[in-house]
């Protein structure tokens, strides 16, 4: 296969532009990232700076790879990450436009690699159950109804890749945040902090500068783990309960708010 790539190249100083590359020897068996590897090998031998892109496990679970491919986060196939996308999904002669995730809280580092530390800070604000090592009761001491465990697992499948933000016309992170709130909120172990968790995570999410959900569903449509919009409804419910309880943000979220005021 012969392909033309239209790739966003961005330098350290923040300036960027599209550059066109030819990929003349593409095998349909290559993964999308292997295709980029091959292009990069050629670029290096020609003395040109290779295209920087994030990747690691290359089996669809680490969440490191990203890429907006022809205007779709993770490319044309549903339920897979870019690393699992194979070139047989394209046709000989195709032109492929490749862009980074674009959102204010995801600054571009270089070319196609973006900084997703905002996601980590949202988890730090409350995406956990406060249990220190050693203080756990026996694993079977608390029953978890199977449907609850299954629903928690559905939400916990999130790999934190950020495709939801990239695809959302509002650049909202609510699918990501909702998935964590739903995961822990479905389990009996997560009940004690449920309302506070929602409030803290939503506060941090807003402070990071993510947009707001208008219930369009683009996030769920591109999610490689096919996480449902339900998780956003659960997050909303938990936040409403938190505000009715009159809770205030605590921990990192409170600190972030204070800093923002200054």
């Amino acid at each position, binding site marked *: 296969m012969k392909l033309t790539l239209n790739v966003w190249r961005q330098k350290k100083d923040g300036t960027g532009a599209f550059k066109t590359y030819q990929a003349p020897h593409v095998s349909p068996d290559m993964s999308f*990232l292997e295709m980029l590897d091959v292009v990069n090998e050629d670029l290096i031998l020609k003395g040109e700076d290779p295209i920087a892109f994030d990747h690691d496990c290359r*089996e669809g*679970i680490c*969440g490191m790879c990203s890429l907006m491919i022809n205007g779709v986060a993770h490319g044309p196939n549903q339920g897979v990450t870019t690393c699992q996308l194979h070139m047989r999904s394209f046709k000989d002669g195709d032109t492929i436009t490749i862009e980074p995730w674009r959102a204010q809280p995801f600054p571009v580092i270089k070319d196609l690699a973006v900084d997703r530390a905002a996601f980590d800070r949202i*988890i730090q604000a409350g995406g*956990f159950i406060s249990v220190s090592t050693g203080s*756990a*009761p026996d694993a079977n001491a608390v029953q978890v109804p199977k449907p609850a465990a299954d629903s928690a697992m559905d939400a916990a499948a999130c790999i934190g890749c950020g495709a939801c933000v990239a695809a959302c016309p509002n650049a909202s992170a609510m699918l990501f945040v909702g998935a964590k709130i739903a995961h*822990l909120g479905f389990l009996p172990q997560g009940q004690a902090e449920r309302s506070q968790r929602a409030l803290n995570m939503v506060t941090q999410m807003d402070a990071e500068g993510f947009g707001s959900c208008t219930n369009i569903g683009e996030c769920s449509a591109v999610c490689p783990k096919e996480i449902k919009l339900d998780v956003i409804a659960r997050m909303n419910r938990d936040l409403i309960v938190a505000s009715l309880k009159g809770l205030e943000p605590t*921990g990192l979220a409170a600190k972030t708010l204070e800093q923002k005021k200054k």
Partner: protein
Amino acid sequence: MSDSKTVPGRILDGKVPSGPIEQRWDKHRFDMKLVNPANRRRYTVIVVGSGLAGGAAAATLGELGYNVKCFFYQDSARRAHSIAAQGGINAAKNYRNDGDSIFRLFYDTVKGGDFRARESNVYRLAQVSVNIIDQCVAQGVPFAREYGGYLDNRSFGGAQVSRTFYARGQTGQQLLIGAYQALSRQVAAGTVKLFPRTEMLDLVVVDGRARGIITRDMVTGKVERHVADAVVLGTGGYGNVFYLSTNAKGCNTTATWRAHRRGAFFANPCYTQIHPTCIPVTGDHQSKLTLMSESLRNDGRIWVPKKKGDTRAPQSIPESERDYYLENRYPSFGNLVPRDVASRNAKQVCDDGRGVGPGGLGVYLDFSDAIKRLGKKVIAERYGNLFDMYKQITGEDPYEVPMRIYPAIHYTMGGLWVDYNLQSNIPGLFVAGEANFSDHGANRLGASALMQGLADGYFVLPYTLSNFLAQIKPDGMGTDRAEFAQAEAEVTGRIKKLLSLNGKRTVDSFHRELGKLMWDECGMARNDAGLRKALARIPALREEFWQNVKVLGANEEMNQSLEKAGRVADFLELAELLCTDALNRTESCGGHFREESQTEEGEAKRDDASFSYVAAWGYTGNLAKPELNKEPLTFEYVHPSQRSYK
């Protein structure tokens, strides 16, 4: 091997406590010294790696109140490669009432490791396995449940009891996210500071103690010194020395190898595990191999054509011209023989010219009988997601045509030598998870890697590291010591050199060549001639690398070629030690199969009289002449026996 190439070293002491095995850990925990809670924040601990071992250790040490700095090369601590483990995690809970016990898990693990692990470590692992499940459930890990709401278990990897806990096919991911959440909580609490996209490039040893590391910020290129009272490496295995493996692309040996060069012993590097059911290579562009769950062998039948070079489509090869070689050779275990046996047999038939698919490196895993017997629906229920994944990657529909599979490097049992306290021979340097050598012997059982990583991180290191810290005083040492300056200068020198070479070959081309050499000569089966060939070729390749590699760009930016170059340079050194170890160990054991040492039936033959020891290699400054230190292995509770799967 004639020992002319190695320097004889000393006999190592694993510092195993005395007494009955079931009391050793408890007694040791009581004997260890404690640090007063008020004093803990005065100690700084560096943790490199944020996977199950590193992440769990960093979180737990943070909870205890130490000042923890955690470094990792990914952009988030949630992405460490522990995340890719699919199957599950073992624990001796005996929730099934099917005869499991701590002793049985201990016994199975020692036996599975082909009697090359330290008994006391394994027993402790089995003991704390039960706490791991409790901890993970409390953290919110959504393990599979039965309708009654209690935890579900399955039997895994041929175990005769159901002791594997799982969260769909994503157990590693869920456990890692549990550890990541615990870690995140400590970051918010201010006890742990994270250093994402930061790579450890050297270990700093001052006055014989590990006192810090040199790192490179992979975004800005800034090389920095970090000082601490102790250093923990949880940096995973070195499977990527083979270039193609099931490891993540970024997995590397740099942290462990640099520590080795600073004096830490590297133990049993030749113990590498090969997984039989991976999707075969499709061409030179192949960048990694994807694992398909071993459970596929429960219903799939493995075969190759009887005739060499038979290129007919599998459906048009009649039953009489198919060789179901595992069923024929191992009538009682059939397609369910252990990983190493299945892998070796696949290699044999492919070497024999009967492999299928591109390049002849593959065997069929055929579900047509199972579909006939059980119906497509049942097979789809059992393996639907795996079939979909296979179709996604290969473009072939396994419901219609047999899958093609081939073995791939999956896990490395070897690693830095540690004593019972997980401390290396350098005081203050602790090593956890896949990065150390300790618990799996020569072969790891399925669903045990997750168990070991979390055991080390949550339940062993927090005690043994505290014991170490309790015996030293925080001395407020800065990073201005000569040792730091020297290590930093060496790191920047290496970076400068790599950037200045401007040769003709890319980093990947060297890595691919090294990987192929290692796979061919030191892969599933090893022999004297092949290993010597590799040992002759590796130094030459290394020399060529340092003259002819092409790394573009600058240090002061994100430079992925530069990152890779540093890692491949270290793989080029480790590879030599790996082959030296394989050459030295003339027996077959676990994942290490020496063709010279096999039974009449072609099975692995151990040589307990000569090799019942841990080979802990010391760096001498001359890669061709490492120092061989030995830790003798004694078996008081599980008596060595030969495996048989006939």
